[in-house]
């Protein structure tokens, strides 16, 4: 293959389990755009225009293959009126759980996507990205109905609910599924190409494969079937090797995998069925030298990229704000150098 593909062509080819011109790179940077604009994070996230401009500048700087329309993981909770906490050195986080008494679940109704200010800011960012970019995948995101309750109730209360209050669990899933579907489809309508379906609670780090089949799997099947575009299920550093066959039955196209799993083994397990997204360690990335970044990129490409069906990214779905620009440049340069198909250097 000789011609340079567009980012969209590159990604679509790899999703078709064929080798594009080179390995696609998703730098999933939600916060670095604030530095580009010389803003604090709270100001940056206060307008969709800021986020769109930040994303466009970051892509111009690093030349990676996506634009990331997400503001922060707690935005659904914020849409619900829950507490969110801004900080100047990291992602906006959920505060005290919005549901203090599980009986509140009986009367819970999903927020209106059309009138929520934080969701409107996100949609505005996606609309601008769609307007001002060509042939670049725009990635939106939702928190899965099964994982959102960690922020809605707190992890302990949620696990108690899953195992001890099946009636309220079913009711909460029904409400969350309505929001998730409406929110995902609104992002797609605004211009998102695909939706990241963040579902860390479904990982085998959190629940057993048997429990997953009874809970997160069923929720994902119902929800993803109603999302009108491709989805990438992401376990946000959680493990998933034990549920890959079931995951493929949820209708998702991509799986975001942990740096703690064997990428080559995952690739053998999903080849031709799911595209892998991952799995550079975003925590250690902060201290990488250029040489180490190159070595990490080469190792991931060697394990995951042969035959296509692979997008290089971090392992969590969000690169920490503390990762320096030099490291991101080194990752991008190494991907351009070692990610070009055919991967002849692997045979050398």
């Amino acid at each position, binding site marked *: 293959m000789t011609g340079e593909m567009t980012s969209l062509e590159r990604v679509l080819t790899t999703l078709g389990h064929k080798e594009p011109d080179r390995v696609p790179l998703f730098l999933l940077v939600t916060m670095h755009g604030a530095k580009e604009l010389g803003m604090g994070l709270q100001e940056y996230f206060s307008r969709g225009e800021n986020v769109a401009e930040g994303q466009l500048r970051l892509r111009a700087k690093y030349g990676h293959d996506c634009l990331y329309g997400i503001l922060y993981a707690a935005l659904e909770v914020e849409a619900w009126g829950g507490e969110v*906490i801004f*900080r100047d*050195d*990291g*992602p906006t*986080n*959920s*505060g*005290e*759980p919005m549901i203090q008494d599980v009986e509140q679940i009986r009367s819970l109704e999903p927020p209106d996507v059309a009138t929520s200010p934080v969701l409107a800011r996100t949609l505005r960012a996606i609309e601008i990205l769609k307007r001002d970019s060509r042939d670049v995948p725009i990635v939106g995101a939702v928190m899965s109905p099964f994982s959102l309750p*960690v922020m809605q109730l*707190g*992890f*302990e209360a949620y*696990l108690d609910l*899953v*195992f001890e209050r099946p009636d309220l669990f079913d009711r909460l899933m029904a409400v969350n599924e309505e929001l998730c579907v409406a929110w995902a489809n609104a992002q797609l309508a605004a211009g998102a190409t695909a939706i990241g379906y963040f579902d860390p609670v479904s990982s*085998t*780090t*959190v*629940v*057993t494969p048997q*429990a997953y089949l009874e809970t997160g799997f069923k929720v994902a099947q119902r929800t993803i079937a109603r999302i009108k575009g491709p989805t990438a299920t992401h376990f946000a*550093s959680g*493990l998933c090797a*034990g549920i890959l066959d079931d995951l493929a039955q949820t209708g998702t196209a991509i799986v975001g995998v942990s*740096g*703690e799993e064997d990428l080559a083994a995952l690739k053998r397990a999903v080849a031709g069925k799911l595209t892998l997204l991952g799995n550079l*360690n*975003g*925590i*250690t990335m*902060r*201290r990488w030298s250029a040489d180490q970044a190159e070595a990490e990129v080469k190792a991931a490409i060697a394990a995951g990229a042969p035959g296509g069906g692979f997008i290089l990214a971090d392992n969590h779905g969000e690169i*920490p*704000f*503390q990762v320096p620009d030099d490291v991101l440049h080194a990752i991008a340069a190494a991907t351009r150098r070692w990610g070009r198909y055919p991967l002849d250097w692997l045979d050398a």
Partner: protein
Amino acid sequence: MAADDRARSFERALLAMDRVGARDTLLVAAEGADTLAVAESVVAPALERIGDDWERGAVSLAQLYMAGRIAEQIVSEVLPQVRPADGERPLLAIAVLEDHHALGKRLVLSALRSSGHAVADYGHGVTVERLVQRCREDGPRVLLISTLMLPAALRVREVVDRLALPGPPPVVIVGGAPFRLDPELWREVGADAAGANSAEAIELVDRFMGGAR
């Protein structure tokens, strides 16, 4: 039945979320026995193995949490003497720094209490300022800090530096995802050790406390 068999039986009941079975096992073990010895020979090994199995991917976080919760409840019922009051300047303290996700703290707290340790729970969403203040007031010998995200993990450095003077500072043991994903991070932030799970937390506490409860 030997203590190890009882520990295995207790472990199986915990993993199956079988409260009745777990309670019965402990009741039988406690008949005529020294209660602290029962906690050390039955409860602690069961929880340590479950923690190790979670680390190996053989047990889920949900099972680990439910096992710890059930164990803590049953120990307080069946072996009430094991569980010292937490309120009287205990030697151990635990907090979640700058985050409201408290599951990791809960897991460690359950395991420590079930093993007979008194622990001051400083809560979650705790600021550096508040944590330093509480330590200066209480003077714990060991401080366990749980974090979820990298920025909070990096703030442990500030806690350690501010506790250094006036001394003597507590031993600081850290835990949470950033420390698991970056095995060098605990040294970088000046902690004394990192625990990957509740079992390791118990081992570390026992090491630093020298058997004190």
